């Protein structure tokens, strides 16, 4: 009798453990296939670097969510201070081709090209504490020519054209070079502003107010038309409900290698 009871206990324990394990394996395999609102994270510097948001990965997730027929809307969860304009443009172009409702929710920071990505979405939500704006371009480098001069190190220059080594940190830039670099920055800013203007349907007056590259808090951004709504998850759900989408969220996750995870720990966003 005692032996029979022991056998039953062991059998049931084994069966239940096997079922729990099978349940977890199956639920993991089905994980990305349920829910009607896909959430794609854009966290970190946008670019191809180790600690950045690789555009290929974001594009892959967008395709996945866009091709999933049960997904009615895609939410971009943004916490980024910007990054590479080329990488950002790839993501922006992809968002514009999505044939589903797109919503950006800006967390702590959604500035520069982090905001550019948000502006490509149909609806932008930001907290009143979120840092956004900073629409513009900057370029900088450290010049070593002063240090080299102190240590009597010379820069031997052989160039095919006068501007070929423009931007070299080993020589002081000439006035012409400075003007040229500045003009390229202005040109890029023009493209950036034009795209944001189109995305958000901004007036020239509104555009002129943000063209300084000023950072804005969520509420200020709303006043300037950069954000549609001030709020967070509650406002996101309310907006989805207004579109007759009763949301069940599905998270699409970026793959992170060990090196990338360690690197992102070192370059974590200091603004909290």
């Amino acid at each position: 009798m005692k032996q029979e009871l022991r056998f039953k206990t062991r059998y049931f324990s084994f069966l239940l453990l096997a079922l729990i394990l099978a349940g977890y394996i199956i639920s993991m395999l089905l994980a990305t296939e349920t829910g009607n609102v896909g959430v794609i994270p854009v966290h970190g510097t946008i670019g191809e670097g180790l600690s950045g948001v690789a555009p290929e990965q974001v594009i892959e997730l967008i395709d996945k969510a866009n091709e999933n027929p049960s997904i009615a809307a895609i939410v971009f969860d943004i916490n980024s201070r910007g990054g590479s304009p080329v990488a950002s443009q790839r993501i922006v172009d992809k968002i514009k081709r999505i044939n589903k409702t797109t919503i950006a929710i800006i967390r702590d920071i959604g500035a520069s090209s982090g905001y550019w990505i948000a502006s490509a979405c149909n609806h932008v939500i930001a907290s009143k504490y979120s840092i956004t704006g900073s629409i513009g371009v900057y370029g900088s480098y450290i010049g070593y020519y002063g240090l080299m001069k102190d240590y009597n190190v010379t820069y031997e220059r052989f160039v095919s054209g006068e501007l070929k080594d423009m931007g070299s940190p080993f020589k002081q830039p000439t006035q012409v070079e400075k003007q040229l670099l500045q003009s390229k920055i202005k040109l890029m800013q023009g493209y950036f502003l034009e795209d944001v203007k189109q995305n958000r349907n901004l007036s020239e007056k509104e555009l002129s107010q943000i063209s300084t590259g000023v950072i804005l808090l969520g509420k200020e951004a709303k006043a300037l038309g950069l954000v549609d709504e001030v709020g967070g998850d509650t406002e996101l759900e309310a907006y989805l409900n207004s579109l007759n989408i009763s949301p069940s969220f599905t998270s699409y996750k970026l793959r992170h290698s060990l090196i990338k995870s360690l690197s992102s720990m070192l370059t974590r966003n200091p603004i909290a």
Partner: protein
Amino acid sequence: MAKELKLETRISNASALKRSLAFIADLLVLNLVIGLPFRRLLPKGDFKTLKAMLNSSPALLAQLSRVYMFMGLLAFCYFTFSEYRLGQSIGKAMLGIQVISNNKRASMLQIALRNVFLFPVFPFVLLWLLDPISLFLTKRRLSDILTNTRVIAYETGIKV
């Protein structure tokens, strides 16, 4: 002179109450074992919310059906493997009832067939209605009758 007392075990069809209580106990076990891993995949909210969600994304119904099918499959495995090997699930063991066929252990096929009602697909879903009706009328589920199985209760008493 004192009369000798003997223990007597009587076997009878398990009552509908005992079977229902055993099933409820099994559902509680399954809620923990199967419900837990699948919880994050299931939509939260009441029936109205679920209806609104499915209306906004009809394709979601297919995805959810798949989840429910797998949950049904695991519940089916739980009942089939425990009833085939031991003649009882945890709920049945707690209530002291057991599945048999012609006074012997039921075969795997019989056990599997009597548990097909766990798959949420037509025509098995009809058994969700027919089984309880049959149980309360005849003390046997329709699935029991169709698979020639019985759920019996052991009652041990003192024979004078």
